[in-house]
């Protein structure tokens, strides 16, 4: 069961398992990191860069640099995990039927795992052929 407490001390008491407590802590830590990563990401691509000029070459040039690969991989991994766990909280609240909840989760977790694979592949395993 998801933790509903608003305090760490209470969350520790309420946590049904250690794992549930770790997820609670993870949401806070990844959240703080993501705020900065995403503000930077959006500022760079929408303010410093003209959105309409973003094309294959721009993406390829940026992703040819290791720093941006790591930056984007962090967003991908933390964002998907943070989002998946948030979605789990929502589904636990909204989908009351146990078997329907199980299958909804199974489908969504698979989708997220697939997207992580797809995103990592396009970040690392693809030769963009940049000069």
């Amino acid at each position, binding site marked *: 069961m998801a933790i*509903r407490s*608003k*305090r*760490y001390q209470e*969350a520790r008491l309420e946590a049904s398992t250690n794992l549930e407590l770790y997820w609670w802590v993870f949401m*806070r830590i990844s*959240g*703080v990191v*993501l*705020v900065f990563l*995403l*503000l930077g990401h*959006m*500022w760079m691509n*929408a*303010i410093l860069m*003209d*959105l*309409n*000029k*973003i*094309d*294959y*070459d721009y*993406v*390829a040039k940026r992703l040819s640099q290791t720093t941006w690969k790591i930056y984007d991989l962090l967003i*991908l991994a933390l*964002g*998907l995990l943070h*989002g998946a766990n*948030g*979605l789990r909280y*929502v589904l636990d609240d909204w989908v009351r039927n146990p078997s329907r909840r199980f299958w909804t989760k199974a489908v969504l977790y698979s*989708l997220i795992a697939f*997207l992580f694979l*797809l*995103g990592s*592949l*396009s970040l690392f395993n*693809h030769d*963009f052929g940049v000069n």
Partner: protein
Amino acid sequence: MYRGREGQWAFYLHRLSGLGILVFLMLHVANISSAMWGPEVSNALMKFYHQPVFQLGLLLLIAGVIYHGFNGLRIILMDFTSWGVRYQRQLWYGVWVLFVVFYLPFLVKIGGGILGGSHGD
């Protein structure tokens, strides 16, 4: 947890924006990964997403990210300080002040682009 009013709105908006961001992230990863099929496919898809309607969507998304982020920081303050819960309502208005400050540049840049009729080539 909350009894109506601001706290309840903060909670609903947090969930709604969170779900919206997750849906966007999925589309975004799919879009970027199209580069693996070569420049032609990738550029065609990006040009498709440069249409004004998607830029409006992007404005909504950026609003969602900024709100979700700052409200998340508010939640963290409530979790880890002794005074956070007492001032949750004031903190929520603080979130909106920060929201306006950070959202304005995006609104001007992207909104201006839409009004100026810019959509790629």
